[in-house]
């Protein structure tokens, strides 16, 4: 036997005594595959939520923009809620899976100061308003669901449901040291400037605009419509659509046109249900701006003195606060 054969035999003998590592390898491979399957399943599961978030953010950035929904909500309230304003920094936006939450505070001018009126909490799923919560801090809540005659501001040919004589008596009974918000219905259609001139000692805060349907408060289709109007006082709030507006009337008309493509959302946001923007925009563009009622605020005695004006038909007392009139 030569040296080479000896070496081969030795190697063969060694390999016979070495325990085989085949089953160990197989076990390790099975283990590795098992973990790969477990971790790949976990990977797929964990990718779902972040991917949905990216899609949500993409939708609110490039689809129906979050800022558009916010604008629609704020503009709707400016034109449908008499004497209200919103604060930009009070807006709170939260995003969750395919939905957006929008919360903000609404204010009212009573006398010289602004007071919190309502807290809105709107929940959108994509661009659909699915939940609306309103937390009102008001003592007198404007009728939410309009009928033909339950409005606080009525057209000269329209009836009212409240007793205006009683409202005047309530106003007379208030202490002199109070400031009052009042809803005044006029005896005819006027230009807002005429009303402001006639009521120079109080602030005319909001004017209801005649859109051709307010005699009956019914649209041409027979649906009950809501009063719409615009804030009259200059508004320097950064967020306000009326900031630096040279003509509030034109800004109002522009807002109506901007809201028109989103009328469904606007009607969901607004406590007033039917806006019927198309026919009302057409009327305003053709006939111009005239008002049939305004919201005013000022010292109690000054509001009371408005009774002497021929143009004042009805009055409804709104919010009352302690004296803050520093003029």
């Amino acid at each position, binding site marked *: 036997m030569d040296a080479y054969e000896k070496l081969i035999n030795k190697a063969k003998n060694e390999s016979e005594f070495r325990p085989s590592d085949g089953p160990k390898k197989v076990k390790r491979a099975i283990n590795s595959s098992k973990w790969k399957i477990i*971790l*790949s399943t*976990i*990977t797929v599961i*964990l*990718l779902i*939520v*972040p991917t949905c*978030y*990216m899609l949500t*953010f*993409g939708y*609110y*950035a490039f689809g129906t*923009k*979050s*800022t558009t929904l*916010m604008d629609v909500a704020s503009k709707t309230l400016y034109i449908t809620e008499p004497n209200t304003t919103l604060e*930009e*920094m009070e*807006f709170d*936006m939260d*995003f969750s899976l395919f939905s957006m939450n929008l919360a903000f505070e609404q204010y009212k001018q009573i006398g010289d100061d602004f007071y919190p009126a309502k807290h809105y909490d709107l929940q959108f799923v994509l661009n659909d308003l699915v939940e609306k919560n309103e937390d009102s801090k008001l003592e007198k809540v404007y009728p939410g669901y309009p009928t033909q005659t339950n409005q606080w501001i009525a057209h000269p040919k329209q009836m009212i449901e409240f007793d205006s004589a009683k409202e005047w008596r309530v106003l007379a009974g208030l202490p002199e040291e109070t400031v009052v918000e009042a809803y005044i219905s006029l005896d005819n259609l006027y230009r807002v400037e005429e009303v402001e001139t006639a009521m120079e000692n109080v602030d005319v805060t909001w004017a209801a605009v005649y859109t051709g349907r307010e005699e009956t408060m019914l649209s041409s289709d027979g649906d009950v419509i809501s009063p719409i109007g615009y804030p009259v006082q200059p508004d320097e709030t950064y967020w306000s659509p009326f900031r630096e507006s040279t003509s509030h009337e034109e800004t109002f008309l522009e807002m109506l046109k901007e809201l028109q493509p989103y009328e469904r959302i606007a009607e969901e946001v607004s406590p007033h249900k039917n806006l019927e923007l198309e026919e009302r925009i057409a009327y305003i563009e053709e006939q111009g701006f005239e008002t049939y009622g305004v919201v005013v605020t000022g010292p109690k005695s000054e509001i009371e003195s408005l009774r002497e004006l021929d143009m004042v038909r009805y009055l409804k007392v709104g919010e009352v606060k302690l004296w803050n009139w520093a003029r």
Partner: protein
Amino acid sequence: MELGTIKNTVLHICGWLSVVMGLIFLADINLSLLSGYDGALSNIFSSWIMLSVVLGVISTFNKKSRSLGLWGLGLSIYLGLFMAVIFILGWTIVPFP
């Protein structure tokens, strides 16, 4: 143990580490998105992801551990993309400071 086996084992461990690190961060993101609170790892995002990328790249050098490395790298790229999308689009959709 032979040098080749040691190399294989190390590269495999790197691959697994890269994948597990990516998954831990992904789980942390899920938790923060669903609970609404900041995740525990959000402050060390860049170093965590960098480490995961490096480990992933290392493990792609070997044919046997390449799939693990690519998996870890894919997770890291996804996490980077997620952070970028959320930051950029978040800045677009929330108009307040």
